[in-house]
């Protein structure tokens, strides 16, 4: 009797959540895939014509935006790793009793809404703001100097917004490193640098990997930072997709571009997993 129940139990448990994900995650993707192959407009309606040209046209017109998004995504992710790693390292190994307090401090931005955080970052970077204002009045920067409306502003905003996503997984990985393994490296006459490079760094890579997935994907497809900080000259693919949907009502093109973006990001992640030699992507990301 209990055996039979035991066989059915997991299916009954997973059914409600699974159905919800099927209806509102999987099915919409199928809808989007089909819309991306349609032709038409909002007034006459869209009809399925297997119009693969939508993909070619989208890339033709907006290819430069795709490349720019990937480039910004790479820069911001790299900046996040460079900024997050030393802090995560210090907290994990030298944080002492106050580890969780330090970590909490680094996660504080999460208590401010994402859009509002971006606006606040714009306030910091404005021409007469708390950073540029004093520097200009001390004569360290020329009066006409500005940061906003540039690619640098967008990448800095992306880095600022997503840094905590990188700190957390790296910290978790470093915190798990068994100190006796490092001892062993020293006993085998490794110097400090050597011990870090050949013991600590490899052991922390799953954390970096999880961090990259958690930052690169949302950063590359973001359109809030480019819109608030970048001005008209630094738009990313997310801005294009958003405009195509809401301003131009070009659903077919927008769907094709969304699908292209997703495919590129998935390819990127899997290529990255391969390069890193991570056998189980799921496991690494699940940490």
């Amino acid at each position, binding site marked *: 009797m209990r055996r039979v*129940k*035991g066989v059915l139990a*997991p299916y009954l*448990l*997973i059914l409600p*959540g*699974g159905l*919800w994900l099927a209806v*509102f*995650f*999987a099915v*919409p993707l199928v*809808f*989007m895939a089909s819309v991306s192959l349609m032709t038409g407009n909002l007034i006459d309606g869209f009809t399925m014509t297997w119009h693969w040209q939508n993909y070619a046209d989208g890339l033709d017109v907006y290819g430069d935006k795709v490349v720019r998004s990937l480039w910004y995504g790479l820069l911001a992710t790299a900046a996040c790793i460079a900024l997050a790693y*030393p*802090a995560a390292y*210090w907290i994990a190994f*030298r944080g002492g009793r106050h580890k*969780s307090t*330090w970590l*909490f401090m680094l996660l*504080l*931005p*999460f*208590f*401010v*809404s994402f*859009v*509002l*955080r971006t*606006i*606040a970052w714009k*306030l*910091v970077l404005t021409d*007469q703001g*708390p950073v540029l204002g004093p520097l200009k009045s001390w004569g360290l920067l020329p009066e006409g100097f500005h940061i906003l409306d540039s690619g640098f502003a967008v990448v800095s905003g992306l880095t*600022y917004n997503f*840094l*905590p996503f990188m700190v957390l997984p790296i910290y978790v990985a470093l915190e798990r*490193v068994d*100190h006796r393994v*490092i*001892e062993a490296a*020293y*006993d085998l006459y490794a110097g400090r640098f050597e011990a*870090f490079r050949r013991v600590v760094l490899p052991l922390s890579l799953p954390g970096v990997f999880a961090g990259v997935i958690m930052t690169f*994907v949302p950063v590359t*497809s973001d359109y*809030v930072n480019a819109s*608030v900080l970048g001005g008209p000259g630094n738009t990313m693919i*997310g801005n294009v997709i958003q405009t195509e*949907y809401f301003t131009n009502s070009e*659903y077919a093109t927008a*769907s094709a571009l*969304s699908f292209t*973006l997703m495919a590129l990001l998935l390819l990127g*992640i899997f290529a990255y997993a391969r390069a890193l030699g991570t056998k189980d992507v*799921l496991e690494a*990301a*699940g940490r």
Partner: protein
Amino acid sequence: MTTTLTAPNSAPRKRRHRHRPIKGRGLKIYTVVLVAWLLLPIGVMMLFGFNDTHSKQNFQWEGFTLHWYAHLFDKKDLTTALVNSLTIALLTTLLATVLGTLAGLALGRHRFRGQGLANVVMFAAISCPELVMGASLLSMFVATETPRGYLTILAAHVMFSVSFVAITVRARAVGLDASIEEAAQDLGAGPWTTFRLVTLPMVMPGVTSGALLAFALSVDDFVITNFTSGATQTFPLWVWASTRTGTPPQVNVMGTLIFAAGVLLAVGNVVLTRRRARAR
């Protein structure tokens, strides 16, 4: 794993000074600077909630006032948006926690055919760009002529929260000792009693952090909400729309109050847990 070598017959003592990982001083200063950098925009946001500004753009400091605190709810549609955000987040938390906990238990406590597929779908739902999820939901709602509004936002929020809850609960459920549940059943407890009195309390920390995660994700979501909202406004959407015309200081005040409430809740939670742990 914070203790450094305590094994009784380890390397001779003189080596110990070399054993320390990289010295702390420089890195400590760096971490302090990084925290300051992260907090600077938040400080600026708080400060401009006290700005006695008269222009539409709240970018220039013009003097201190408490005016915006006194007139916090003057902008009716902003208040409505905030209330929408909070109720949607509460309902999302409720639904996603129930669905996610059940799924997490299935994945953590059982082995079954299709488990691999379920894990892949969860991973896909977590790592899929929000933009793509939002765009695909919009495609579906447009194609099926579903009117967009409060309910479509709610459905979308439950969708992206449920996998996060499931994964936190799964992580907690995986390590549990099955013999405890068996003992409860041997003592005559039915499946429901066993679940309520034994299984649920054991996975409760996972459920709580999953629920908190769901609330945080929902209340702050912008991208997916942007695609599924129709005419309904939430706090992030309202703030986004205001960037075109000028963000009123009330937004800064609300941001400040939400920040304060969140930090107080988090700190209070930690203090309470510590006190309870000490009482034992």
